[in-house]
């Protein structure tokens, strides 16, 4: 079963490398995000205006893994919060599966850098929160243990959040978002606070969940390696005003290696776009 999944994953990644458009064609096409000419202007308390996003255009396919990368203040979180419905765009339109996004909804899960587990609920009840809020807890009680198991926290259901390590807390918040079976999962630097090893484990975990549940994922990260390791496409953003600078396709098959020459070349290219490459020779061929 697991092998079969891996193979289908590989195949779909391979088709991805060749055909630009359709990913995992035979699965239902939900979770398509269309962002058209979206701008966001914040007014600060002192009266000054900040253009956080300017004319952002982005189309995200069903089941695609997109990472947003760029320097601090380029509007990554703002874009994510717009998709989540926590902010409203100053102009432009955001749609999910053709329907305009108005306000937050359980179909668009969000995981922050800080796990924000509810400290007054134990882990089991934290994960169950979405079910209860949507009034389906009676029917779907058993889901809680399933999702706790998915993130390896089955034994910690009775524990309160302040007893968990950072990685465990983040996994719990992932389970809490996933239990609603969202079509889109938005991740705002979810692994930013974790050590390198926990981080790589979590990356694999996220990939596993994505392939199992067929969820469109949009993730903000500051880690170029992470972006290349995870995504189908990388959206490179630049600040003042925040805009999409370049969208790069990552054509590598999965499961990916972090050490192939192509990987390092793409890494160099992204850093170059962000002007962090240091002194870099142009690669002799195009990736």
């Amino acid at each position: 079963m697991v092998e079969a999944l891996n193979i289908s994953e590989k195949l779909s990644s391979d088709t991805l490398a060749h055909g630009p458009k359709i990913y995992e064609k035979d699965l239902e096409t939900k979770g398509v995000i269309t962002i058209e000419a979206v701008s966001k202007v914040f007014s600060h308390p002192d009266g000054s205006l900040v253009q956080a996003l300017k004319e952002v255009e982005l189309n995200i396919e069903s089941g695609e893994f997109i990472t947003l990368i760029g320097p601090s203040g380029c509007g990554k979180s703002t874009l994510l919060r717009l998709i989540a419905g926590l902010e409203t765009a100053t102009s432009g339109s955001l749609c999910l599966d053709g329907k305009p996004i108005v306000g937050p909804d359980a179909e668009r899960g969000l995981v922050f850098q800080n796990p924000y587990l509810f400290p007054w609920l134990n882990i089991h009840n934290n994960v169950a929160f979405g079910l209860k809020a949507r009034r389906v807890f009676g029917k779907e009680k058993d889901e809680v243990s399933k999702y706790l198991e998915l993130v390896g926290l089955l034994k910690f259901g009775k524990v309160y959040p302040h007893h968990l390590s950072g990685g465990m807390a983040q996994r719990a918040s992932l389970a809490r978002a996933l239990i609603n079976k969202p079509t889109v999962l938005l991740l705002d630097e979810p692994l930013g606070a974790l050590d390198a090893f926990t981080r790589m484990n979590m990356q694999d975990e996220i990939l596993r969940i994505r392939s199992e549940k067929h969820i469109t994922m949009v993730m903000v990260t500051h880690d170029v390696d992470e972006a290349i390791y995870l995504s189908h496409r990388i959206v490179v953003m630049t600040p003042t005003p925040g805009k999409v600078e370049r969208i790069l396709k990552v054509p590598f098959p999965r499961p990916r290696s972090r050490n192939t020459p192509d990987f390092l070349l793409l890494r160099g290219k992204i850093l170059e776009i962000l002007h962090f490459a240091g002194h870099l020779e142009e690669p002799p061929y195009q990736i």
Partner: protein
Amino acid sequence: MRTAEKAIDEVQLCTPCEAASSKAPKEATTTCEATCELEEKTLETSETSLVAKAESKSRVNLVGLLNSNRTVISILLALVVELDFAASGKQPPADRPYFVYFLLISLVFFTLFPLLFSSRKSILEKFREKDNFYAASFLFLNVLNLLTGKFTVLPPIFFPTPDRILAVLVEDFHYLIIVCLGSSAKLLFSGFFAGALAGLVTGIAIGFSKTASYWLNPAIKILGPIPPTAWIPIVLVAFPTTWTAAVFLVALSVWFPTSVMTSSGILNVQNAYFEVSSTLGAKRLYQIFWVGIPAAMPLIFTGLFSGACASFLTLMTAEMVGVKNGIGWYIHWQRQMLSYANVYAGLIVIAVTFYSLITLFFKFRDRILVWQKGMIKW
């Protein structure tokens, strides 16, 4: 030379093995003897050292016993003073030797308690820790007895003997506890729950609704700081009975801190929790009851606690001014009659009652707030 060295070796061998099995010194001696039975001379040396050790240990045990039960000694001392010293005769005697009864009951309690709970280490540990405090308390009663009953250094009208105070508690039990305390409790609970409920409602409204905040906040800020007892002249006129007036005053004194703390608790909840819950599918009403209020719980309890303390004060004042019943009124009335034994008895009842209420309150709070970091003390 060689044997002497060996003897020293043997002694050194014996001591740690004795120390290790301090619970069974007999066994230790026999095993030590076995190892020591190599040479006669060494045997002698080690045996003498063992005897000396055993002796010093039994002395330590006696001192340890005395040390671990200072309360009992203090009680015995108080008993000796009460029974052996003649009263000065300046204080009217009680009908029965209540102080002796009290000391005897305490003596039985404090000697039996460690025996009854000898298997429950944690309870015993707590009990031992408080030993000094209990001992000092009985010493205080003892000194008080000396100053009032025996030598009567203090004016007898204002400082009755412990005997007489206990006599009031026993002989006036029905009136003091059932009638007065009962009436106070009825007033206190009616006022407290009415005030707490009103405070929670206004606090939650201010926390979640801009309109409520606009209208209620200034009202609370202006009216809240007025001490509830300052309303007495108006309230006594405005309410049909003094009892309802007193309930209102108690409620008022609980309402203000509860309301302020509840609203500020809710307003201080990190917005991220509301955002997270909304992306998980929670609607407004669900967020109010399952995010806002639980997150504000620590501050709500702080408000309720200040409210409870304020309500005790208001209750006592209200009873001394208007209501013709209750424990506060009892004290006021007895003071006017210069029956200070009754006044002290009333104070003791109040202290015990309020102490128990506050303890119960904190137990309840700790139950609700188990999730708080560093709050796992029961």
